[in-house]
């Protein structure tokens, strides 16, 4: 993958690459910290069909969504043999009671037997997080467990 970095004097830096389907996709990182998602038009790869300003939270949420998809698929593939085991992702909402709290406080494994196998944060993976791992808003938790356990986990993360 060849990510092209171009300086935009007075604005910031643009980082983008060409996809297999012939679209240019990337971000403009503004100097004041703002991020803009850019997607080229299909009939003219030089121009942008969309340039969407994202807040910091939104940018890391999007990064997590894109990054976690592969992990979830891999895990699903691995657990295919075991019936009843499902992989699911949960995002930590800004109003979650466990926001900025250590994960152990939610006691998810004790209460639901669900394992949190990874936390996705700002596009990076924190594999097998311990109970001390602090949960932040826009984090994405990758969880493995039974259908009922996962439903309970969702409730816990949302309502405590």
């Amino acid at each position, binding site marked *: 993958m060849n990510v092209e970095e*171009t*300086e*935009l*004097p*007075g*604005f910031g830096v*643009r980082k*983008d690459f060409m996809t297999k*389907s*012939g*679209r*240019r996709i*990337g971000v*403009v990182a503004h*100097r*004041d910290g703002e991020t*803009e998602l*850019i997607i*080229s038009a*299909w*009939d*003219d*790869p*030089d*121009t*942008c069909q969309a*340039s969407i300003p994202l807040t910091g939270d939104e940018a890391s949420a999007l990064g997590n969504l894109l990054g976690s998809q592969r992990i979830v698929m891999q895990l699903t593939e691995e657990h295919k043999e075991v019936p009843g085991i499902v992989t699911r992702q949960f995002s930590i909402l800004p109003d979650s009671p466990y926001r900025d709290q250590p994960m152990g406080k939610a006691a998810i494994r004790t209460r639901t037997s669900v394992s949190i196998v990874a936390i996705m944060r700002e596009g990076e993976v924190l594999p097998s997080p311990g109970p001390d791992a602090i949960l932040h808003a826009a984090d994405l938790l990758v969880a493995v467990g039974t259908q009922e356990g996962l439903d309970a986990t969702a409730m816990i993360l949302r309502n405590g």
Partner: protein
Amino acid sequence: MDPIALTLIELGAVIFALGFLARLAGRISMSPIPLYLLGGLLFGAGGVVDLHGVREFAHLAGEIGVILLLLLLGLEYTAKELFTGLRRSWQAGVVDAVLNFLPGAGVALLLGWGGVGALVMGGVTYISSSGIVAKVITDLGRLGNRETPTILSILVFEDLAMAIYLPILTAVLAGVGWLGGLQTVAISLAVITIVLVVALRHGHRVSKVVHSENSEVFLLNVMGLALLVAGLASAMQVSTAVGAFLLGIAISGTTADVASRLLEPLRDLFAAIFFVAVGLNTDPLSIPPVLGWAVLLALVTAITKMATGWWAAWRAGVAIPGRARAGASLIARGEFSVVIAGLAVTSGAITGELAALAEAYVLLMAVIGPLAARFIEPAVKALRRPRKPKRETPATVG
């Protein structure tokens, strides 16, 4: 009435009117600069109302406006960006300078305004308005476009060229001969090099001098230093504006970001007064006789900027629609053309006709530029459609 009271009333009325004009400009999404100029023309010598009291204040405030315009321009760039910009686009920059300086200089010579007039008018037609261009690019969501870095580096080159051009102009307008002219050029080149190197290596130290957590202290520091540097530069005959520009470049990092945010409202106020001041000093009746030349210059230099952008984007490997966008984006002229004309007018070394021509020209280009940038895209599409009737379907993803 007490003269102070009268001046305050006049000044208040003018600034209030400017606010109205700025809102109008925002409503129809155009640059407010031409409206400010028009306002100045209406209220100045020979205009509808002659505002005497304001003029003295407007003169000094206008000077500060120019200093702030250039200071904030310098703050936008880091020294590193200037270097990469120069390396990436110096060929395009030279083509830009030659193609767009010559029409203005040529018309000045044709009208018998001599070498000084040619130098002024060449500068007026050469420099694009980085303010208008940057705004058009963000407004039209073209920041992610492939041609945008090309446009921006041409602007960087022009701004650096100003740092050499303005001292020369100041010297020539002051009436120094060839030798004196060469001397100022040598001085300013040396100063620019030193400032750029210092900014690159020790930018954080300069930033540290002005930086403060207290925004009041910060504001006073930056403003005081800017005026000091501008004054010293002026005493050395190197043009006030360039001093401020170089100071802006030397300040970097978060200090630069905070400084821009603090100074922006001040710049908007004083720059608006500057544009009005230029208009105030021009007799509106002197515009109609030069309007024909202004239209001709507008046409020719719209085409030359178009060619510059087209060529530069082509060199960067951008396809035809992008080349057209790059060319059209560069057409706008604005604040710096007015700065050059204003400098010339206040020196008294040029005819009033030249100021009238420069103003009429900027009025046209500040309006045409953004419109051209906006409508070039549908125009190119309409032109290209008949040639390729088969409309491809978008590639399916996945």
